[in-house]
């Protein structure tokens, strides 16, 4: 499904082009509704763009320029993700849609819950399944904390709390997240929020109503 770059199978009407950090969640949604796999071609762009959001809009544009003509419609499994509107300008060009919201933490938790969490403690750092699973690579190595642990203060001086917004129930990840909070000296909260509004990328494609389970 992911490798069908040229969409040789013309029955797949919709392209879902997503952030690599969402690939497991998107695949799980498709698995729960097998009929989707006949209609959707799922493609993912590098998850590492998360920390270089200036690459997202040009990357999406490049992919769509080559492939958009192969589909009836296009959904982008991204929020704004710090592109400051640049992604929306690309989407307009290709008549494509994206998930509403500023970032995945917001669309996973839902805007109300996310706002409430920020209000309770602005100095909150959020984890998702993806970030827990890749914590060492993205948070420790990615921020250079493995080589320069003294930078911790520079990054996290203003943070007090870690909230794990879980997509699935996984005991090991809960333990890991709690340990990361402890290592950072943060308060810890766990919330099983599921995939939130991620499923909109599949909406209106199936007669069967989507059943979202974790």
């Amino acid at each position: 499904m992911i490798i069908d770059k040229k969409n040789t199978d013309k029955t797949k009407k919709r392209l879902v082009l997503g952030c690599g950090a969402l690939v497991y969640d998107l695949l799980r949604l498709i698995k729960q509704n097998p009929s989707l796999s006949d209609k959707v071609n799922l493609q993912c762009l590098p998850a590492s763009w998360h920390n270089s959001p200036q690459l997202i809009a040009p990357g999406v544009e490049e992919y769509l320029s080559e492939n958009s003509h192969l589909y009836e419609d296009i959904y982008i499994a991204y929020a704004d993700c710090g592109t400051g509107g640049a992604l929306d300008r690309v989407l307009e060009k290709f008549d494509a849609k994206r998930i509403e919201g500023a970032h995945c933490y917001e669309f996973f938790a839902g805007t109300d819950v996310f706002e409430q969490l920020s209000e309770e403690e602005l100095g909150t750092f959020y984890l998702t399944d993806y970030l827990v699973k890749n914590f060492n690579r993205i948070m420790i190595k990615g921020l250079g904390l493995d080589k320069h642990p003294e930078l911790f203060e520079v990054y996290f001086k203003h943070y007090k709390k870690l909230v794990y917004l879980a997509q699935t129930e996984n005991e090991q990840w809960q333990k890991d997240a709690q340990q990361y909070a402890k290592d950072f000296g943060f308060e810890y909260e766990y919330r099983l929020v599921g995939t939130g509004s991620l499923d909109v990328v599949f909406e209106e494609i199936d007669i069967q109503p989507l059943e979202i389970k974790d």
Partner: protein
Amino acid sequence: MMSEEDDFDLNDLDDKELVEQIQDDLYDGLDAEVTEGTEILLARGWDANDVLGEALVGGMKIVGVDFRDGILFVPEVLKCAGAMKGGMKILRPILAESAEDTSLGKFVIGTVKGDIHDIGKNLVAMMCEGAGFEVINLGINNPVENYLEAIDEHEPVIVGMSALLTTTMPYMGVVVEEMEKRGMRKDTHIMCGGAPLNQEFADAIGVPAYGRDAARSAEMAEEHVLSLRKKRDHR
């Protein structure tokens, strides 16, 4: 094992070589070496302003270019900034003594309400200080009142706002509006920055100057003050 490079003496270098070495050490984030080089230049009778401008700011500009080009990343830039801070610590008291004649004026800067990203904002603050501004850093999560109070208290030539989140950047517009209402825009220039921003956004909220990076922002701030002075001198 010590390599030859480790035990060579900065004192052996001539001025030009030493400035280049300080820039290299700053690039490599070597705190102690940058501090030592700064001290040597001062001991050789260099003016503190020249040490700052040529060695430290000059070095940080190279860092800025390589960051923009994707050769350096945030952790490395932070190590460089740390090394620059070491040199600034020595220069600051010397510069303060002669501040009257060299200062470009006051620069108030802060991250807007709801946002606690501050790495870029602090870099801009450091480069503006390096350019000759007296910087008043309001920190993070600043409601409009903080900016207004700081303007009343310090009468800065420039107010700078930073935002890294799509959700917090529109708040800059609120600050601009309040400044407008209070007639503060006449005497206070406004600058804004942060990765998701661009000139178009700045135009939309009525901010005259968008700074894409620390070095360029400091230059723009300096250009603004110099052009003000020119206008004043003409009158």
